[in-house]
């Protein structure tokens, strides 16, 4: 290409994209390999991993939600001030004064809820298909950490609106930490930076929410995606694997561009449109300003922590701390305790009926206490079957 002014646009384009828009399979593979963003995928993939039921797109949906959260979160940071004197006022401004402020906040809230749901279902899906087994053990542990960080982001984010829900949810949550023997009270003060939830706590939660946890999270997401690829991509049924006896009979590998990339863009756009529609239809609640002297009745945490709050109702340490912590540690230890190595690439395979039943039971237990805590607990945390 001659270096003339007329050629400048083409020159700039070619300097960024070494390979043009791929026209054939050969070019598409070249495009996948030459781009740092596209090369997150293998250039060629197994057709079995493309079906919606292979993954229900749950990992992708989580990443899309994370991207939306990052974007809307940065926008919100331009107006939000993390100080008890003004935090609530800036929340009101975002809701009523800032152009598109309410939509931005609603998107942030619903994407956060969506991410909690998709990450949890992603974990369930991966377990049911045996995705924690070798060679994917380490990546399973990283996945559990990402799940914990998703919840930690929600927890720290909940204080920021500085309304009654925020203040009392964090008061209860931080006192659960204090219920840990020996180190509990110290750990609580370390988190809050003070005796009670106040100025220091708000600033610490803000920094954790906007900087510290996201930084670690993005590093772990990078590792997670890299290892998904390096560990052989999605689990597909056995006859598609290269060591299968009749490898030649199985379906051939197909290029990731356009088959996978186009599907991902479609799912991403659909998820964004869905979240936008929800945000237009339903607004993120904002209760009265935080009042340390008055506890609302009942004082409830965000819905995905109500299971833990329900357990804490029985005992602050054993229910609120020990059971959840044991659950998370058990999840991380799982791939190293599971002695059955084969993953047949089916959901709920007969060989793993016990493991799958146990796991579903355990998650159902947490879902059940969450439902009880959300729907069937009235004032004073008394059991009310039909409070409406």
């Amino acid at each position, binding site marked *: 290409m001659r270096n003339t002014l007329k050629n400048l646009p083409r020159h700039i384009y070619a300097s960024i994209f070494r390979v043009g828009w791929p026209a054939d399979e050969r070019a598409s593979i070249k495009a996948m390999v030459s781009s740092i963003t596209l090369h997150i995928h293998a250039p060629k993939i197994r057709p079995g991993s493309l079906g919606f039921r292979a993954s229900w797109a749950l990992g992708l949906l989580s990443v899309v939600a994370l991207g939306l959260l990052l974007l809307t979160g940065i926008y919100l940071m331009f107006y939000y001030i993390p100080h008890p004197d003004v935090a609530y006022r800036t929340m009101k401004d975002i809701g009523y004064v800032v152009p598109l402020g309410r939509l931005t906040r609603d998107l942030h809230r619903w994407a956060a809820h969506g991410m909690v749901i998709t990450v949890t279902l992603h974990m369930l899906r991966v377990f049911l298909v045996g995705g924690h087994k070798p060679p994917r053990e380490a990546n399973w542990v990283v996945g559990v950490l990402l799940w914990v960080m998703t919840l930690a982001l929600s927890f720290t984010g909940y204080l920021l609106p500085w309304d009654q829900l925020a203040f009392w949810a964090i008061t209860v949550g931080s006192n659960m930490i204090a219920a840990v023997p020996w180190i509990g009270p110290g750990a609580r003060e370390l988190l809050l930076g003070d005796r009670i939830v106040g100025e*220091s706590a708000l600033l610490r939660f803000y920094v954790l929410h906007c900087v510290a946890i996201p930084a670690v999270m993005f590093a772990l997401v990078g590792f997670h995606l890299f290892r998904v690829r390096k560990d052989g991509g999605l689990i597909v049924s056995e006859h598609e694997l290269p060591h299968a006896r009749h490898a030649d009979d199985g379906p051939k590998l197909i290029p990731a561009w356009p088959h996978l990339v186009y599907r991902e863009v479609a799912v991403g756009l659909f998820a964004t449109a869905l979240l936008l529609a929800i945000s237009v239809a339903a607004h993120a609640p904002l209760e009265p300003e935080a009042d340390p002297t008055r*506890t609302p009745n009942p004082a409830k945490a965000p819905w995905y922590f109500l299971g833990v709050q329900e357990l804490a109702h029985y005992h*602050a340490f054993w229910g609120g701390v020990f059971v959840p912590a044991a659950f998370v540690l058990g999840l991380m230890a799982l791939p190293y305790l599971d002695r059955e190595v084969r993953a047949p690439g089916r959901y709920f395979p007969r060989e793993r009926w016990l493991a799958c039943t146990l796991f579903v039971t355990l998650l159902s237990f947490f879902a059940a206490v969450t439902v009880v805590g959300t729907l069937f607990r009235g004032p004073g*945390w008394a059991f009310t079957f039909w409070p409406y």
Partner: protein
Amino acid sequence: MDAKPRRSFLFAVGCAALGLSAVEALWSTFRFAQARVSYGPPLKWKLGDPKSYTEGVPIYAAEPRVYVLRNSAGLRAMSASCTHLGCTVRAEGEGYVCPCHGSRYDEEGKVVGGPAPAALLFYRLAVDGRGRLEVDLGEAVPPAEHLHGA
């Protein structure tokens, strides 16, 4: 490695030094995060004229989150912070109820139901130089300790 004992020794020393500095960095982070200054509310609160607290109904002082109780023996300040997870208990009937997880206390702050692990705390009451009642949230006292003659 055996063939080069000095090299493997130096490698081990290097690893140990790196490990030590990592521990040191963690410890520094831990120390840095420990707040030395509180920007929160004070520990001592003025509660006004002690005579205004009459026998019978407990009176709630919102900012220090205490109930001021008077009986024939004198005045006491009972914490309104639930010993379970720190929500504010409210007077209901003869006793107190926590709105968060349903802990119930009797009129003396003893647990009668719910998940609360311990009785409500009592704090030191005093009368300052200008005759005003003062509660010190930094000093818990036994429930039987009354402020006499105020």
